[in-house]
């Protein structure tokens, strides 16, 4: 690639549910990834199977793309409503692709496509894909192969008809002399995967030794379990759809108690039902990973949109006092790494560990360097190597670290007894209050170890900046992108991203905040939950906040508009 030929642009495909826009979006996104471009996908859909207005947007770039963009350069409208809703987002050089049969006011920036002539009705979406691919300058063969791979499992004649619709429309558009700047061609594209947050979490957990997942379907977390279910047979996992979320967490605890590293996936409402189980995991010191893909609440809220408003809920869920870790990945790579870390921390410190994501990250496809499996070390709770314990075996033996040697039931002659009641070292119910005090201290002591393994917040940009943007979880890309824009304008801006929000270790970040002239928290909620937590833990008061709670992901434009730099 020509080094100075850099380009970043935004494509939005809009239409009704049932028009196949996700299919087109996924094939186009993967075609772009295979051609060497970076992508960041934002899926905005309504909670319905047919109708409504849905969009599949992808920001594409020759370099890294880490955040969505609001301005649209290529608007693919599968219906007239899409044009009406998004025309005002069109950039100066932007182009609208629309069916010529639709009654759209003819604009200079509109390409009217004779879809009826290029394909049968059923394949309009694929024809739109062909037109798009030609305009972007993608290789016809690459896109065609991507489509074939995508449809690979359906009937051959459907594959063939899709391919034909794709070719016809690609060639039609390629012959048209459309004023739209193609993407710079990338020679010898690097190998990249196309992956979203939920896929990366599922993979990370399996790479760390996950063997059991129970779940109750809830958007936007469901696809974590669906991915695991897809691999269950070949990887030897069990994925069980439980009768409710209460069953899901308890089933995971049962499996984990018996020695299968376990995980549950849910969203806020389902997690609310799991709260008692979280406390049980802590009391019985049973490892479990809980993934909460956030969506706007209270209650059912906006089921298919995004938000970052459950930090405080997850931090405090479960009655009583016990240590926990909360990971908040900001990228697909972090989803993979932190899912592994979560499984390890749960196994080592024997309790609940949380991964907090949201709909945006869960559904956001990105181009990712294929994961290297050489470094993985799956947990083996059944291994007794190096395990020291006295007999008779006491599951909750008090130790300096608070971590008791863990045996599994049935694998040795030693008996493993766990109780949700306060218990003695051997796991049996007790009302001896001095034992109670000792056990509280033992459980809390594990927090010291968890704290020592905390991931420090990541600082990007200037030291001692004029402006420090503080973010957590999926807002990472948006703040870093906005900061880069401001730095390009000569401003001294830095970002501080928390990929783990609990435990908070002030020594790891407080000086960065104190050294900045101005600190602004950027969060996808209405009250600034991380800012409040930081103040509680450090006394540092972040007064300025940029908060988004309309159900859409944080974008660089949103931040820049709020800052008015």
């Amino acid at each position, binding site marked *: 690639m020509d080094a100075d030929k850099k380009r970043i642009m935004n494509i939005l495909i809009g239409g009704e549910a049932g028009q196949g826009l996700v299919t087109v979006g996924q094939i186009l996104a993967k075609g772009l990834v*295979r051609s060497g471009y970076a992508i960041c996908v934002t899926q905005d859909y309504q909670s319905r199977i047919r109708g409504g207005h849905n969009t599949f947007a992808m920001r594409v770039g020759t370099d890294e793309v880490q955040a969505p963009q609001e301005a649209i350069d290529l608007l693919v409208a599968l219906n007239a409503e899409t044009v009406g809703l998004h025309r005002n987002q069109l950039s100066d050089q932007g182009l609208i692709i629309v069916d010529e049969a639709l009654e759209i006011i003819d604009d200079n920036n509109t390409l009217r496509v004779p879809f009826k002539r290029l394909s049968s009705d059923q394949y309009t979406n694929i024809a739109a894909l062909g037109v798009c691919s030609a305009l972007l300058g993608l290789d016809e063969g690459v896109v065609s192969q991507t489509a074939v791979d995508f449809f690979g499992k359906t009937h051959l004649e459907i594959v063939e008809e899709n391919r034909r619709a794709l070719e016809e429309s690609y060639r039609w558009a390629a012959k048209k002399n459309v004023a739209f700047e193609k993407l710079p061609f990338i020679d010898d594209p690097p*190998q*990249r*995967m*196309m992956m979203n947050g939920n*896929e990366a979490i599922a*993979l990370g957990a399996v*790479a760390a030794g996950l*063997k*059991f997942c*129970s779940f109750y379907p809830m958007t936007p977390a469901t696809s974590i379990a669906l991915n695991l279910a897809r*691999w*269950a047979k*070949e*990887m*030897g*996992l*069990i994925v*069980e759809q439980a*009768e*409710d979320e*209460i*069953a899901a967490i*308890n*089933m*995971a*605890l*049962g*499996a*984990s*108690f*018996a*020695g*299968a590293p376990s995980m549950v996936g849910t969203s806020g409402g389902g997690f609310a039902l799991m709260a*008692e*189980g979280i406390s*049980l995991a802590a009391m*019985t010191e049973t490892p479990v990973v809980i993934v909460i893909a956030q969506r706007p609440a209270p209650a059912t809220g906006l089921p298919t949109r995004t938000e970052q408003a459950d930090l405080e809920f997850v931090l405090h869920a479960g009655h009583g006092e016990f240590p926990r870790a909360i990971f908040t990945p900001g990228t697909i790579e972090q989803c993979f790494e932190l899912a592994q870390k979560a499984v390890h921390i749960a196994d080592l410190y024997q309790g609940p560990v949380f991964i907090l994501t949201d709909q945006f990250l869960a559904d956001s496809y990105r181009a*990712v360097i*294929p994961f290297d*499996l050489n470094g*993985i070390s*799956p947990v083996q*709770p*059944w291994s007794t190597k190096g395990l020291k314990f006295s007999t008779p075996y006491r599951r909750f033996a008090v130790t300096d670290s608070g971590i008791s040697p863990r045996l*599994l*039931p*049935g*694998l040795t002659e*030693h*008996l*493993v*007894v*766990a*109780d*949700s*009641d306060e218990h003695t070292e051997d*796991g*049996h*119910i007790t009302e001896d209050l001095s034992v109670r005090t000792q056990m509280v201290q033992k459980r809390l002591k594990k927090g010291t170890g968890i704290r020592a393994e905390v991931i420090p917040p990541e600082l990007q940009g200037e030291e001692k900046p004029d402006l420090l943007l503080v973010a957590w979880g999926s807002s990472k890309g948006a703040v870093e992108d906005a900061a880069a824009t401001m730095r390009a304008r000569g401003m001294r801006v830095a970002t501080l991203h928390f990929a783990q929000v609990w435990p908070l270790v002030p020594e790891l970040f407080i000086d960065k905040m104190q050294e900045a002239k101005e600190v602004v928290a950027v969060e996808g909620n209405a009250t600034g939950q991380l800012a409040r937590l930081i103040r509680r833990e450090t006394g540092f008061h972040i007064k300025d906040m940029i908060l988004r709670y309309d159900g859409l992901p944080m974008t660089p434009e949103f931040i820049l508009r709020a800052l008015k730099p």
Partner: protein
Amino acid sequence: MVTLEDYGQYETAWCPGCGNFSIVEAVKKALVASDLEPHQVLFVSGIGQAAKAPHYLNANVFNGLHGRSLPVATGAKLANPDLTVIVESGDGCNYGEGGNHFLAGIRRNIDVTLLVHNNQIYGLTKGQASPTTAEDFVTKAQPEGVASFPFNPIVVAVAMQAGFVARAFSGMVDHLSELIQQGIAHAGFALIDILQPCVSFNKVNTFAWYKKRCYTLPTEYDPRDWGNAMKTATEWGAKIPLGIIYRNARPSFGERIGRGRLVGRETDRGVLGKIIKGFQ
């Protein structure tokens, strides 16, 4: 050889005369008769007086939350099918708080044995109505008498064609023990509803009350006849049938999914690598 001594003898927190004592005795006898060593057995219980039972014998124990023993037992059995998993809890725990799990457990036909101490009252919380308490029964929580119709676990389990459905009475220890042994041997979900008196809070359904009504099903009774089992299941009142009311040979959940033991299974990096490649 496994002996009763292997299962130990413990002091309990129960009232003198409680039906729980004889149930624990029957459980121990059944385990010995099944030639199971304590470490091969996992008891899962919830909350209630009955849920304390596993603390009074030697075995692996997970004493979890109120109503949630079946999901825990399901997870444990799937992780390690070699464990003999027994759920032991009361009528409130299994039929009230855990009602949904009771239905799901039957549907899955998970290979666990469910022992329900059914005294038709809440003992731990001092005498409120349970799902099986009779209509018009007066308690401090229901001073004008229970207005709801009682839950009949046997009818529900037989209607859902649960793998093994039996009823026992704590006053007939050997019969109960024999049923528990058969329940353990059954490769699928086995419900044993155990009628028992609560000497402190149920002054109606006393030892004598049960003794007068309970009878064992005759040897010629065929528990594989579902139609007849439904009829037998509805029998409640002047006469209460004990024994295996219904059974079938439906494959268990574990058999159906055929995944084997999860515990001890290494992560296959080769397959994982292939899955990752699929994302390119």
